[in-house]
């Protein structure tokens, strides 16, 4: 014998019956772990070998319950809490409609627990380095022979004695299965290399995925309806005599949203009064618009001081100054409409109501410099 360790001694039997008959004898004769290898499940073998009942049913039950709860939870949370949408007039939490998917996920969880739990967890497969796979009798076992193995389990066993025992109990032949030498695959160095390889693979895969996701949607035909047979704005076209693809509106066309502003030519703008009431919503809207459009130059407080001030030769107007405060609403409205000095017209950016709302806010800013006691409501005073 060479210095390899004996893994087990196999007795090969011709039929399931002779295997079953041999088990009690071998069990009493050898105080080692027994294992049987058969081409198909032989009924009664578990009891003869004294194996415990398979725990798979319990595992499946637990995972099935988890599956159904997970499904219900997902459906409840997405349809009822995170993204509540009315469909078909049904309530957000309509359990009736959730049952089909609950059932499917229960089955999915349960079946995968049964299948993969059996293979990976209980049977510890895939495992290609088992000494039995290298045994000479393996092709016979997967075909039509039955083997009873007396396993050494790390200890030294008396091969001769066990062989004789197996032969006496009816084995047609006996094979000694040796443990293979520790393979390079099991060394820490190899393990380390595998870890590095996995890390590199992750990086490559991540980078590749990034580019794929970036470029893939642009590939034909995945252009998401961007590629359409129509003219873009400003694109030329020979169909019309002027060579332009765009058409001018018909003479006399009136826009549906703009209101003609004729104050400048006909009447004094300062006579216009602010038509909007001075309410909290209007002031809030005015503040937001002021901050968006006006504060860039005039400053958040309206005092004309912003970081941009230094960039301009002409200092933006301080809206809080005495002479500005003395202007009427109408005059200030006219400035927004027509612009003044370097200030351009904001007639295109702000609608009529928005301009008046901004003016209300500007008045509030002016008043804030010189606030009176009656400006604060009685409730706030207390």
């Amino acid at each position, binding site marked *: 014998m060479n210095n390899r360790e004996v893994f087990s001694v196999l007795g090969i039997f011709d039929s399931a019956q002779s295997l079953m008959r041999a088990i009690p004898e071998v069990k009493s004769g050898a105080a080692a772990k027994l294992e049987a290898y058969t081409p198909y499940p032989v009924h009664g073998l578990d009891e003869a070998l004294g194996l415990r009942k398979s725990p798979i049913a319990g595992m499946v039950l637990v995972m099935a319950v988890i599956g159904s709860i997970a499904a219900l939870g997902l459906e409840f949370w997405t349809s009822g809490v995170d993204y509540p949408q009315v469909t078909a007039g049904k309530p957000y939490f309509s359990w009736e409609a959730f049952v089909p998917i609950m059932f499917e996920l229960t089955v999915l969880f*349960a079946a995968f627990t049964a299948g993969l739990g059996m293979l990976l967890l209980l049977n510890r497969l895939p495992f290609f380095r088992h000494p039995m796979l290298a045994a000479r009798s*393996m092709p016979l076992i997967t075909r039509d022979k039955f083997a009873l193995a007396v396993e050494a389990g790390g200890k030294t066993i008396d091969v001769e004695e066990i062989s004789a025992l197996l032969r006496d109990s009816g084995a047609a032949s006996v094979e000694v299965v040796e443990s293979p030498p520790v393979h390079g695959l099991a060394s820490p160095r190899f393990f380390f290399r595998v870890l590095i390889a996995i890390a590199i693979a992750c990086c490559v895969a991540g980078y590749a995925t990034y580019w794929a996701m970036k470029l893939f949607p642009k590939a034909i035909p995945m252009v998401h309806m961007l590629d359409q047979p129509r003219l873009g704005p400003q694109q030329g076209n020979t169909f019309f005599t002027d060579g332009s693809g765009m058409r001018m509106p018909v003479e006399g066309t009136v826009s549906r949203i703009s209101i003609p502003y004729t104050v400048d030519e006909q009447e004094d703008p300062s006579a216009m009064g602010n038509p909007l009431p001075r309410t909290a919503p209007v002031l809030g809207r005015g503040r937001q618009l002021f901050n968006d459009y006006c504060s860039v130059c005039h400053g958040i407080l309206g005092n004309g001081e912003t970081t941009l001030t230094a960039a301009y030769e002409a200092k933006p107007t301080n809206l809080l100054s005495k002479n500005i405060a003395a202007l009427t609403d109408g005059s200030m409205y006219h400035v927004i409409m027509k612009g003044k000095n370097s200030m351009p017209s904001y007639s295109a950016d702000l609608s009529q109501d928005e301009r008046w709302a901004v003016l209300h806010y500007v008045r509030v800013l002016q008043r804030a410099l010189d606030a009176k006691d009656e400006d604060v409501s009685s409730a706030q005073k207390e």
Partner: protein
Amino acid sequence: MKPEAVLEKLKPAPVITGHVRLGDLDDQLLTPVGEKPPLAWFIAFAMTSTATLIGMALIGYTIATGIGVWGNNIPVAWAFDIINFVFWVGIGHAGTLISAILLLFRARWRNGVSRFAEAMTIFAVICATLFPLIHVGRPWLAFWLGPYPNQRGIWPNFRSPLLWDVFAVNTYFLVSLLFWYIGLIPDIASMRDRAANKIRKFVYSALSLGWRGASRHWRHYEKAYLIIAGLATGLVLSVHSVVSFDFAVSLVPGWHMTIFPPYFVAGAIFAGFAMVVMAMVVVRRTMRLEHLITDYHLEVMNKVILACSCLMGYAYLLEGFTAWYSMNDYIHHTFLQYIFGTYWWAGWLTITCNILIPQLLWFKWFRTKYFGMIFVSLSVTVGMWFERFVIIVSSLHEDFLPSSWHIYMPTYVDYGILLGSFGLFFTLVLLFARVLPVIATTEMKMVLPGSQPHREGGSHE
């Protein structure tokens, strides 16, 4: 009749004829896998793969151009795509029924046909999933159907039967695949040990996961296999029921029928068995497996077809009766135009092929002779396809609003993709027959006479 003759008649038919030993099964079933296929196989493969290519080319054309190349148009928004989807999902059901339900009922004849039927399930579901995928028009966005957190901040509609379908069909596919693979592992291990060349040995070795037939493995294996069979039984009921919900939860007359779920399941098993019978006839003839897939197997499967046909008849009867009984003008109209409307021929074809012709199976000649059973099976396959045509197209084409009525005509692309799905299915079947055993060898070993010790009162004495 003499009592002795009667007793002889009552004896259970053998599921394996002739004397078969354990090792013979490996020799007969696992070795052809490595051999060069006969010429007939190549001819068949050439035909089916051509059909597949035609289908794939037309699918490519559809995706590149848009589904306007099909005949679908409002109000017939669902047509060949959904017909084919329902048809193929249905074909798959026979496999699950044979492998799972009959395992639980311990039908002895199951083991001979289960592996092939399971494979057909998987291929049929592959064909089926193709259709909704291309019907969405932009299949590369199909992942939107999945519930995953996204920057759009939206979730799929869990109250929609179409989403139930996504879950049901995917679960069905995954569980069927798992079940099939687990059943295959011991067979693959046997093939690994018999593989002649190195590449085969490596592939089968990897696929067998190092299976070594240890009793400590078998005890978990058998239990897990039974559990998955039990779960798959629930799937048989649920998957086609969910498919039927696509129709039945709506308000379309002819679709909203409470009998739809069990009726769809029965129809699915019906069509699936017809397909299995046709395939089994070819397999046992060409691969010389008459002793393992016996006349008894075929006869029993034909009896199942007959039983399903009667169930379908019951469902048609009930549908017709309730349609009248509902006293709803719209339902009356829909049912009348099923058999007297534009597509009257489809309605009558369905009734003839599904109800009338299968009644021939009451005669033993049709149950046992190849010509008879193939005739019936073909008619069932045609009939079940047209049944879905009637349900989908006939119900839709005359809408509530007569001004939108529209006569649906499929285009060559529709026909080509249907042909392609058949091609894909049979291509996969042909490949399967060459790389994996067509009969569950390990399960056959279990039922061979004398294979189990302590078998009391068994039928083999």
